[in-house]
């Protein structure tokens, strides 16, 4: 798993590529936590390069989303496709979060 962070005017884009599994998911959570500590509150997870996610990844996302809720932050997603989308849908994450086609459309929805 590789994580690239890009700060836009109204949100931080977090592009995650590779596999988010029991080994790598804690890295994701730590990175997001660090960005939150720096004051970032609105995140777009660009998952267009993510090919695999397990419950460990879902747990890290949920823990991050819970922490963001308490500071009135937001977690949006773009590029959720293939097996990752299947897992999102079957676990109810598809309705828990806003899923966008691209980081740009996600950014527009933030306003």
């Amino acid at each position, binding site marked *: 798993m590789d994580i690239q962070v890009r700060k836009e005017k109204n949100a931080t884009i977090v592009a995650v590529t590779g596999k988010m*599994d*029991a*080994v790598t998911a804690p890295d994701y959570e730590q990175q997001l936590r660090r960005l939150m500590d720096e004051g970032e509150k609105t995140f777009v997870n660009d998952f267009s390069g993510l090919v*695999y996610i*397990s*419950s*460990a990844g*879902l*747990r890290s996302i*949920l*823990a991050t*989303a*819970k922490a963001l*809720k308490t500071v009135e932050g937001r977690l949006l997603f773009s590029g959720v496709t*293939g*097996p990752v*989308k*299947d*897992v999102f*849908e*079957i*676990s*109810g994450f598809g*309705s*828990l979060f806003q899923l966008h086609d691209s980081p740009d459309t996600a950014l527009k929805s933030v306003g």
Partner: protein
Amino acid sequence: MPPRSVRYEARIENLEGILGFVTDCAGEIPWAARRLPDIELVVEEAVVNVCKYAYPDQGGEVEVRCDGNDTALSILIADSGVPFNVLDAEEPDLSADILERQVGGLGCFLIRSMSDRAEYRREGGRNLLDLTFLPGGKAGGESGDA
């Protein structure tokens, strides 16, 4: 393919090796490549459960055995740890919102949802989780099916 098995110390660091073994086995069965995302996910969830809960006091092993043909792929996950039936775990509330949603329980749910059959038994002091995958797969577990 002839049945094959591997044994590893039940530690998260060994997940990659175990998944590599399962991917190799599935690669020998033409239809199984299409179900690989489901297979990999279910095996990860089952193995992670063993790593986290089977041996609370000291370490132990996990054995993974694959046996497949044209009609089915069977993957057995075995450990000698404390009795635990992953299939008995409580269903997560999938409709709860972000704050109410429980962080745990999803792994067991995914094992049940993404495999075509999952059976647990306790035998000879071992937990045996028998996971079966079929060429057609389950509705929702496979994208792009006609």
